[in-house]
């Protein structure tokens, strides 16, 4: 036992932190985001330097951010939640109806009710998946249509207009504090909160363990079903929050609200380095991925890329980020194996 050498203690925490950060997936995605903003700004100065440009840059992702974060929590456990777009639509409409039917209700109560409703819809997914042992893809594809169907039959041809909602609520969508839009601050709080839990709480780490190897998690005695259920509840609640954000930001809610946005949420998470097979990825990455996805959609017309190609560029971004992950992880696994053979 002479050569006990546990290497990391020889590296200072600061240096290790910097090395890790520089090698992280988040940094490289952030660099791409910066690049997109710089290129768009050189084409048109108002992209960044006008008041509206600055506000849109920060405000537009506020809707996708909570969804991408919720999606990350679910994907980390090796599941997926496709129903969030319909949940968003339902809760956005619910928000409008609450203002119409109960004019005196405080805004904070509306937030709470919409989030709780989203959590309830998420719990339905979670129970079926965690306890019914049905693949998440199938269940949430089903609830995607069911929730949308409930929304359609409830709303009919009715729509919520800006005039139905109080001014103080709608101003949330336009107000800024210290140059930062309120809704973006709200989304940022969610990002920080969920990131903290996923990194620092036992339950958060268990989500990663479950996604990394569900069988091992069971053998280990982790409460797999409970944690998976909780992940879906969180995803639903965040979709509920996104519903309120939608109502505040756009002022109108029609039956098409949130249509197809679930795929953007999955795309944002994947671009941000959240492995689709679970077990790895961070909320930060997904948040930057959401920013990048939204910003690239706004930047491409400015750069002069035709409508037709804009969708394709997003697709290319998703595929290339997954391909990059594959290549890097294969190379890393190979290095680790070879290092073992030599020792």
């Amino acid at each position, binding site marked *: 036992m002479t050569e006990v050498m546990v*290497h990391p203690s020889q590296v200072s925490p600061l240096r290790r932190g910097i090395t890790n950060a520089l090698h992280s997936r988040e940094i490289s995605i952030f660099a791409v985001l910066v690049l997109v903003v710089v290129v768009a700004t050189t084409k048109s100065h108002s992209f960044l330097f006008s008041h509206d440009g600055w506000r849109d840059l920060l405000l537009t992702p506020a809707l996708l951010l909570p969804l991408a974060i919720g999606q990350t929590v679910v994907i980390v456990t090796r599941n997926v939640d496709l129903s969030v777009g319909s949940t968003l639509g339902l809760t956005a409409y619910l928000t409008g109806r609450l203002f119409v039917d109960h004019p005196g209700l405080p805004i904070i109560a509306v937030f709470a009710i919409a989030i709780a409703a989203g959590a309830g819809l998420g719990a339905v997914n979670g129970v079926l998946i965690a306890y019914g042992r049905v693949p998440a893809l199938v269940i949430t594809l089903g609830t995607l249509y069911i929730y949308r169907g409930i929304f359609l039959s409830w709303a009919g041809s009715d729509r919520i207009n800006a005039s139905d909602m109080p001014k103080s609520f709608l101003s949330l969508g336009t107000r800024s504090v210290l140059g930062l839009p309120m809704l973006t601050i709200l989304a940022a709080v969610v990002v920080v909160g969920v990131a903290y839990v996923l990194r620092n709480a036992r339950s958060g780490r268990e989500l990663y*363990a479950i996604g990394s190897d569900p069988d091992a998690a069971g*053998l280990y005695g982790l409460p797999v079903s409970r944690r998976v259920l909780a992940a879906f509840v969180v995803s639903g609640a965040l979709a509920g929050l996104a519903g309120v954000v939608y109502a505040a930001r756009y002022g109108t809610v029609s039956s098409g609200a949130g249509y197809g946005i679930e795929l953007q949420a999955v795309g944002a998470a994947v671009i941000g380095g959240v492995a689709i097979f679970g077990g790895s990825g961070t909320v930060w990455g997904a948040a930057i991925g959401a920013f990048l996805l939204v910003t690239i959609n706004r930047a491409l017309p400015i750069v002069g890329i035709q409508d037709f190609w804009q969708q394709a560029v997003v697709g290319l971004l998703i595929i290339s980020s997954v391909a990059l992950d594959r290549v890097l992880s294969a190379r890393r696994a190979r290095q680790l194996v070879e290092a073992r053979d030599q020792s």
Partner: protein
Amino acid sequence: MSEPEPMLVLEGIRKSFGAVVALSSGRIAVAPGSIHALVGENGAGKSTLVKIVAGVHRRDAGTFRFRGEDTDFGSTAESKAAGIAVIYQEPTLFPDLSVTENIFMGRQPLGAWRRIDRSAMHAEATNLFRRLGVAIDPRRPALGLSIADQQIIEIAKAISLDASLLIMDEPTAALSGVEVERLFAVARSLRDEGRALVFISHRFDEVFALCDQITVMRDGEYVSTDSVSETTVPEIVSRMVGREVDELFPKIPAHVGDTVLEVSGLQSAGTFHDISFSVRAGEIVGLAGLVGAGRSEIARAVFGVDGYDAGSVRISGRPVPPHQPRAAIRAGMAFIPEDRRKQGLITESSVARNVAAVIRRGLTRGGLLSSAAENNAAGPWAGRLEVKTSALDMKAATMSGGNQQKVVIAKWLATNPRLLIIDEPTRGIDVGTKAEVHRLLSDLAGQGMAILMISSELPEVLGMADRVLVVCEGRITADLDRAQATPEVVMHAATSGSGQATHALPDVQGVTA
């Protein structure tokens, strides 16, 4: 020495999975402050017994007392909470997470606000590794760790649990001598603290060096318990093997013809090294060794499912390109994998479709495949192998393990192979059907087929094989004739570590790629 109250008592434990009885009367009594060895051949029911104690499986019948109380664990969380730590044969780690997180998952040290205290966690992991005397970076991910390192992590996990009963299911199978010594030092210190340990191993030198008591199991039944000081290795081995090897495994001597398969210098980083052997027509060559030694990996590389880094594979003198199962099939190879439900059968399809799966191409008419053509092609094979099925359109999933295996064999026989590679031919098959599968293999060899058989059941290897190759830690450590191959010799070669072939390899020396 007065008799202390046993920590763990199991009596008359029964457990069956479907039609297969894994345990018919499991029994063990482990005293605190002792290390108890549990030995038996593969399939004797040791792992099932362990999994019942761990709460993975529930027993069908029998008494289970832990610390004097009747117990019935419904989950691994319950057994863990009661103070039982288990190190399984296959390490159960989370590859994406760091080594430290793997050790402390679910019970990480917490700081203020129930925040995980990472520095305390790392310090504790470092301490654990220092105590075990190993150099593993606690911050690296578990991905890519060798089996030995994974095993060390499992041990660290169990130790950090502060369990009163620690069960180790073949913890040393992949460890080097130094690592084993360290593990034993730790195990002894745990024993001296008054904990009870159960140690499952195939290495008798280790069992006798470490353990106080030894319980033998065979075919799901308890055989005997002795104090280690009052018994000997040959005595234990004879109890383990128990039956006359030949009666169950009828191998008819066959005329051995030309060399069919020639493997030389096969190598794959991290899994196997310098593998050279040959199989001749009419010969059954058994590939023996411990679970995880690399036998299946070698077979998969020969057939081309996996690639390899160096070496060559030849069928009747002609080279077979690597990593191309199709080319291997064309060259006359057939491969029956270990896990027939997952890899050998399309369980949701009919028997006929399964049998015709590999020869599909020859049955098509204008690119279309009819059920009639499939039935016509499958009928004779199913009949020859006595597949017990009411109709050829029955789903494979509803059949017993033995009949499923026959379907898989039929599927490959329909391709007219010259070489049959079969991995664990009788795993999970009841005794009666086992004999039928064995007779079938013997017949095929008699008709001039070359057969490479991988088996973890020693009597099966010894009874069936004309020649036994023993694999240990990714290398062939022995090449034995039928006459030389005794349980003791094979066991010794399977556990003795790399680098000491007990027999030269006359057929392949000088043949290089």
